[in-house]
Every structure is written in structure tokens, then in C-alpha cells.
């Protein structure tokens, strides 16, 4: 079980801020593929990966990062702090 979090317009498009997901995916990309098969709103949120960032256990990561032992994955657009 992995906690999957969504922020900003990713959260709005998917319609929820977080969910617990049972997944057999071994990488972030695999997880995204699974999510996209679920419902069109996921496919819409993940349509353009270049517009997304991912954090694995609260560290910015690449989309091919492994999921083994991971507790939390977060998807969001590029950050706009400051």
C-alpha cells in the first residue's frame, strides 16, 4: 500500500488530495500507467508528464524511480514558491 498525494491542478483534475493505493507497479512510471487505466480523470491529469513533477517519500525524483519500500508518492506541477 502506497499513499499517493496530488497537489495544485493535479489534485483538482483527479478530484482528491490523496488516496491509498494497492499497486503491483515497481516504478513511478508503472504506477502512473496503472492510474491512467482506471478512469479518464487520471489519464487527463497524467497526459503530459513534462508538465508534472514527482516526489518519492518527499524527495524530488525521476519518473523511473523504483517503488520498493516506498510509503508516499506525490504528483504536482512545477513549484511556484517565493
Amino acid at each position, binding site marked *: 500500500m502506497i499513499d499517493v498525494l496530488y497537489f495544485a491542478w493535479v489534485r483538482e483534475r483527479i478530484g482528491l488530495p490523496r488516496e491509498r493505493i494497492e499497486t503491483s507497479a515497481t516504478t513511478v512510471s508503472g504506477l502512473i500507467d496503472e492510474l491512467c487505466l482506471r478512469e479518464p480523470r487520471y489519464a487527463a491529469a497524467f497526459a503530459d508528464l513534462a508538465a508534472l513533477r514527482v*516526489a518519492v517519500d*518527499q*524527495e524530488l525524483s525521476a519518473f523511473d524511480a523504483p517503488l520498493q519500500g516506498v510509503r508516499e508518492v506525490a504528483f504536482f506541477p512545477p513549484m511556484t*514558491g517565493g
Partner: protein
Amino acid sequence: MRIAVQAAPFDQGAELQAFSAAASGAGAVVSFSGLVRDEAGRLSALEIEYYPGMTEKALASIAQEAVSRWSLLDALVIHRHGRLLVGEAIMMVATASTHRADAFSAAEFLMDYLKSRAPFWKKELLADGADWVRAKDTDENALKRW
């Protein structure tokens, strides 16, 4: 080194005064404050989302990096989340060092990283709708100088 992520407004003057007074031995203190612009009257408010847990860690790690790269005597980062009105302070950073070049460089470094690497997302609430602020290429490119 103090990192604060908070919904409450803060008094940048009081923060600067306290930071400066505590930075004993410092010869140079630089502060930066980011304020909510009215965007030519279109903006009614700014909504800032963040990632509890990761945001605090990212800020602490950026500040720690600044402190060690420029031998800062101290560093301060305050960043608000939630709903902010035009003219309010969104965030501030302050740096203290012996000589001015270090305090300036470290403050610019902190700002560049905070803009593009700290998990905050701004949404502009406008008279005719709402828009997520897009990250700027210039902000991403600013990181390359460090």
C-alpha cells in the same frame, strides 16, 4: 537558523529586527520579502498550497546548503500558505554574514531555490476566475548559476 511555514501573517520588520539582533558578530544582513502584487487590479487574492512535511524539509535543506556554501552566521526563511490579500507578505528570507557579498549571494540563492524547488503552488483568484501560476523558465534557468 529558523524555518517557518505558516498560515498566519508575519511582521517582516519585527522579524528583521530580531534576526539582526540575534546574528551577533555579523557585519551584513540581507533580507528579501515577496509581496502579493495586484496584477493591475485583476487579483482579488492569492491561494498558496503546500506539501506538509516535504515543504519544511525542502526549506531546511536549501537553507542549510546556503549556510554552508557562504559560511553564514544565520539564515531565516518564513513562507505563508493559505489565502493572502494584495500587499501582504508571502514570504521572507534573511541572511547574516561577516561581509556583504556572502549575505547577498546566499539570499539570491535561497530565493532561486525556493522559487523552483520548494513545494508551494500559487493560485491567483481573479475577478473572472482562478488560475494556477505557471512556473517560469527564467526561474528554472536562474538555478543554473549556482
